[in-house]
């Protein structure tokens, strides 16, 4: 038996609904239809009255979730695409993220954002939103890169008493497979060493983990041992694991699919520069998507986001610096 990243998300929701009567799912087309990507397939049937279609109203979806959280429920909101969460942005960052701080009443809302690019999706169905949400105090931002993490981190997200922005990558939905669901998992807030090395640390997250591991394997044939750190959660960010890795390698390359300005890669470099400056043997570098909206055509799309090939060339340059 094998299970995909998307199925793991569905299974995590099924288990959350089964284990905790406080959980319900609300989002566009999530009911009988099973969601635009089928992440809630059959859940409406299995859990009647707890998996509900919402109108196309991201603001009201999030407001409803906050109200339900105040009443002690644990809503899971599916944004059909991460890009559309901007319509509900006000409720996420001003209502959900501030509620506990203002009132001491926790706000256990999980917002699922199908994020990131797939070929042909264009500027409004491909965005990476983690940096913009991580900017706000009061939010947890998760970016699982593996089938196992998609499952265990979504379950943990639902259990966390604070609003969680769960960035699930659409590119991984169908490709990524595992033999079975995990029994154990690293907790949220701990990064994972996806591949060990000694010459260069690549810090990355979400779908870029796979591009970076592929790049590291290619560089291994040239004799370079590249360490790849999968952040798993961008907020909280596991600075300790990153610094420890840089201490081993002396070189840092940060790779993110999001835009460069003020993002996760910038944050990682800022922390290493201020806390681990004397570990660096070369100026830290980063690789991001190009600074334009995400293009539609495959020729442009593949050149817009970082790829294994781009990571190899950036890493090679940094290794020679």
């Amino acid at each position, binding site marked *: 038996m094998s299970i995909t990243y998307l199925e793991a998300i569905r299974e995590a929701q099924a288990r959350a609904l089964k284990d905790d009567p406080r959980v319900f799912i609300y989002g566009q087309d999530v009911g009988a239809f099973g969601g635009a990507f089928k992440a809630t397939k059959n859940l409406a049937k299995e859990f009647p009255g707890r998996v509900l279609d919402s109108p196309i109203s991201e603001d009201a979806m999030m407001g409803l979730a906050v109200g339900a959280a105040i009443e002690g429920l644990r809503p899971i909101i599916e944004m059909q695409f991460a890009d559309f969460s901007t319509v509900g942005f006000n409720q996420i960052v001003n*209502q959900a993220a501030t509620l506990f701080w203002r009132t001491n009443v926790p706000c256990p809302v999980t917002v699922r954002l199908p994020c990131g690019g797939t070929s042909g999706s264009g500027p409004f169905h491909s965005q990476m939103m983690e940096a913009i949400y991580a900017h706000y105090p009061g939010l947890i931002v998760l970016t699982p890169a593996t089938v196992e993490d998609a499952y265990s981190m979504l379950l943990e997200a639902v259990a966390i008493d604070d609003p969680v922005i769960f960035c699930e990558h659409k590119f991984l939905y169908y490709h990524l497979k595992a033999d079975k669901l995990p029994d154990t998992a690293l907790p949220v807030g701990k990064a994972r060493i996806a591949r060990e090395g000694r010459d260069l640390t690549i810090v990355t997250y979400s779908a870029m983990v796979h591009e970076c591991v592929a790049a590291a394997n290619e560089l291994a044939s040239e004799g370079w041992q590249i360490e790849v750190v999968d952040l798993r959660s961008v907020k909280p960010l596991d600075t300790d694991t990153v610094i420890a890795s840089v201490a081993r390698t002396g070189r840092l390359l940060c790779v993110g699919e999001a835009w460069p300005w003020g993002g996760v890669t910038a944050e990682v470099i800022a922390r290493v520069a201020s806390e681990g400056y004397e570990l660096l043997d070369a100026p830290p570098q980063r690789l991001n998507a190009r600074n334009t909206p995400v293009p539609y055509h495959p020729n442009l799309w593949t050149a817009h986001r970082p790829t294994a090939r781009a990571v190899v060339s950036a890493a090679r340059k940094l290794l020679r610096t």
Partner: protein
Amino acid sequence: MLETVPGLPAGDATALGREKAVLAYGFMLRARLLDDKFATLYRAGKIHGGVFLGRGQEALSAAIGVSLRDSDVFAPLIRDAAGRLAFGEPIVDAVRNYLGSALGPMRGRDGNVHRGYPREGLLPMISHLGAMISVVNGVLFARRLKGQTGMVGVATLGEGGTSTGAFHEALNQASIEKLPLVMVVANNQFAYSTPNSRQFACDNLADRALGYGMGAHNVDGTSLPDCLATIGQAVETARNGGGPQLVVASLLRLCGHGEHDDAGYIDPKLKASPLGRDCLKLAEEYLLSQKLADAAQLAVWRSQVVGEIEEAVNQVQREPTPDPFTEKWTALSSPHLNEMHDEI
């Protein structure tokens, strides 16, 4: 939760019949005198940030408060001091939030009208207009999911807030879910300085109810008995499964947007029109005409409320203010997920 003032009736408003008017009047009077006190403290430099008064809207707001039960939900806006008090907010907490007491409901983290007790059904507003309505929906939705019945949620808004997408999304959502929501719009003719002619183009905002599938109600917001009747009816309709209700009250804001605003843009003709009548004065005339009180009684009540407010202000001024050194400086309820890098 209702506070009592000697001489003013207290208790379950629904059971009081004619005395409901007296009960509502008590909260109107408290709100008016409390607002006046805040304006004085503001001009004396005792209040950080703004002061936003509800002068002219007390009848509408108090009518909401006395129509609700403890188990209901209320998301008030900035001109709802009367409704908050009637719903059960202690005067002292209103004072604490304005003076930034560490013992206040928001502990100095938010101020003035931004206060509430979410778990007790009084939702603390954020500044973004229309944003609280779907939160009320969520509370009602969750209670229904938990099997609770018989509750009502009220959200209030000025006519300016009806122009937001959030207002539209939330009313549509409430109607789809057939939630017991009562949306009360105080059409006070100005959103800050913007007149209705630049805010909406329909004849009557209540007509929008049809588009959502809500019940529609219009009311003269200056008249306490009318407000009590209309709000009472809308609340009971929603409570009894009649679906969401939209109430539009016509009145005039008898003050600036905040105490920093002299409202020089309000046409004097409008002030002289029936909309410009003071609802508190009208309520007193109503009590006298109905023989629910005489002039001497009104004077006694007024001096009692003044004493009550003075006592609260005196108490709060002796209370500690928030301490940045003991403040936790975290926005998360999960301590293990805090990032400590921002320690100063």
